[in-house]
């Protein structure tokens, strides 16, 4: 005869203490990161400021480009008509002295007055040759463009600058915030409660995920604002068509690149015990953000260097979309570079998880990388 074993008596279980899986814990940690950040005034103001800069940097050049100069003209005739045709505002002046005074007062940008000889003219300006006025009054030879599709010089400077700046600023600002939030948990020792409750890896993953989602949100907003304001001012559809794929590729590169950076910053935060010590410990993490930033800015005219940079994980997030923008990359190239970046990010995350586990509970001063690597304080059961 078999009898059923009586259920082992246990103190009553919690209200619903079912335990949390790694993923559930990660989501909770990420949710807290997001909730805290979007209620943080500094973060909200920073985001708005970023969007204003994005809008301004697309709108203002267009406004300045179309902005008409004001020119004083003594006498009328061909000169006034030519300037008018070039879209400038013409003001009539009675004599040379008055025209000169208008220029000195800043009422006009330049003045066109009769020259010493009859029929000749002279242009007056304060400290810079008014090229647009001179151009309007000169006869230009006809120009034939051999490569009309090539990227405009201004854009060739602005676009790499914008991509690099966006990646640079978001990596640094989110990176520092991740490090701060890790150190805050160490400093207040809430980390002891957290680690007792959920796996250390969930804390790391949650921070990367939460901040990653916010950073992605900012990038998408910036891209939207840039595109919308570009259409609003000029509607340069050719430029949009050119920029579109670069922006579309920039987003996945940004996301994976962000994970790479975020894991480095999380480890940076875990190595120290006080907020004040973060800047001292963040040298390596800053270097891998700064170095690619400057390399891409200075070398974006050098195809060989850019090819190399577009495959190096730390610079790929900006270099590859730029090569796509300039039309230098084959279609398979971004895929390969993204895979390389994914691999690097995964590797970095695994290493970071171990260093994070090894340093998170060490609360006596700064932990060396070596000590963090060797001493895995946390039990991994």
């Amino acid at each position, binding site marked *: 005869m078999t009898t059923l074993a009586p259920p082992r008596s246990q103190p009553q279980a919690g209200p619903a203490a079912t335990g949390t899986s790694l993923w559930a814990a990660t989501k909770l940690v990420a949710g*807290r990161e997001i909730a805290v950040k979007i209620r943080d005034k500094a973060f909200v103001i920073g985001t708005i400021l970023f969007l204003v800069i994005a809008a301004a940097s697309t709108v203002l050049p267009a406004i300045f480009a179309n902005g008409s100069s004001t020119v004083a003209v003594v006498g009328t005739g061909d000169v006034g008509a030519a300037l008018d045709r070039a879209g400038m505002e013409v003001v009539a002046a009675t004599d040379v002295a008055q025209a000169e005074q208008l220029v000195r007062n800043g009422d006009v940008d330049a003045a066109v007055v009769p020259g010493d000889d009859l029929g000749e003219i002279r242009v007056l300006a304060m400290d810079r040759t008014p090229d647009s006025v001179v151009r309007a009054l000169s006869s230009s030879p006809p120009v034939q463009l051999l490569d009309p599709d090539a990227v405009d010089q201004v854009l060739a400077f602005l676009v790499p600058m914008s991509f690099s700046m966006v990646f640079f600023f978001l990596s640094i600002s989110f990176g520092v915030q991740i490090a701060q939030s890790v150190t805050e948990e160490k400093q207040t020792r*809430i980390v*002891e409660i957290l680690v*007792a409750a*959920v796996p250390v890896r969930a804390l790391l993953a949650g921070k990367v995920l939460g901040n990653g989602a916010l950073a992605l949100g900012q990038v998408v907003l910036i891209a939207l604002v840039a595109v919308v304001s570009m259409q609003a001012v000029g509607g340069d559809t050719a430029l949009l068509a050119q920029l579109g794929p670069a922006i579309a590729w920039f987003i996945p590169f940004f996301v994976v690149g962000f994970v790479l950076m975020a894991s480095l910053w999380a480890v940076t935060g875990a190595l120290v015990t006080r907020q004040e010590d973060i800047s001292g410990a963040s040298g390596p993490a800053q270097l891998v953000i700064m170095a690619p930033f400057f390399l891409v800015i200075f070398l974006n005219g050098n195809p060989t260097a850019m090819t190399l940079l577009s495959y190096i994980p730390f610079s790929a997030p900006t270099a590859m979309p730029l090569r796509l923008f300039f039309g230098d990359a084959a279609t398979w190239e971004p895929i390969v570079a993204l895979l390389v970046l994914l691999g690097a990010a995964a590797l970095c995350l695994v290493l970071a998880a171990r260093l994070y586990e090894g340093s998170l509970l060490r609360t006596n001063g700064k932990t060396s990388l070596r000590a963090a690597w060797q001493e895995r304080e946390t039990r991994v059961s």
Partner: protein
Amino acid sequence: MLRVASVDRSFGGRRVLDDISFEVVPGRMTGFVGANGAGKTTSMRIILGLLSADSGTVTWNGEPVTRAVRQRFGYMPEERGLYPKMKIREQLVYLGRLYGLTAPAARRSVDELLDRVGLTERADDPLEKLSLGNQQRAQIAAALVHDPEVLILDEPFSGLDPIAVEVVAGVLRERAGRGVPVLFSSHQLDVVERLCDDLVIIAAGAVRAAGSRTELRTRYAMPRYQLVLDGDAGWIRDVPGVSIVDLDGARVVIELADPADDQTVLRAALARGPVRSFGPIVPSLAEIFREVTQ
């Protein structure tokens, strides 16, 4: 039962825990007493899995303490930890959810607890806006939010005003009354004396004494008696087998070579005149502590 068995731990060659073994019994408050650096916090961290033991085991109801088991433990670290800028209710709900509660269950539990520790009105204030005593109450609530099966509290009474001590003690007693084993460390021996059912005394990384409070008192009771007479008690030094510990006119504290001599002493005293009181001196926790850690 929570059982710590033969736990050793060294830090960089220095042994801080040496073959630590003790038990925390469900329904009882176990006071964990020791000087600073004796190994209390290290032991608690090992129970919580924040540190690994070099050897030895921690078991709950006979099973090894894995993360799943530990999620049903409540813990209050020595150096208080909560988010300074986060609202109390919000962070307690967050912790409850990390322990595996659903959002509604966590909210319900947090509201009850805040009411119990008297923080309902401060629920939406950030932690840093609270007085230290109130922060401590919030900390207790953090350890209880998931209605844990086991409670481990590192110095829960340090820095509390007398009213808060009563509140916290009351909450812990309640939990013990529901069958939860409660382990709490303290260096305030008077508080431990008043609250604990069982005691673990640790010194220099080793358990010096462990058992129920009454058992330890009996075990460490010194053969000392206090006698109060009407007249001067100086004559007692001539009674064989008696040595005087403290003499103050009519009141004398004596130590007996053989505890069985107590009746002889009493008879001798009665023969000389009225005896106002006579009885053994029960050692205080402080005395037991001094005795076992010397």
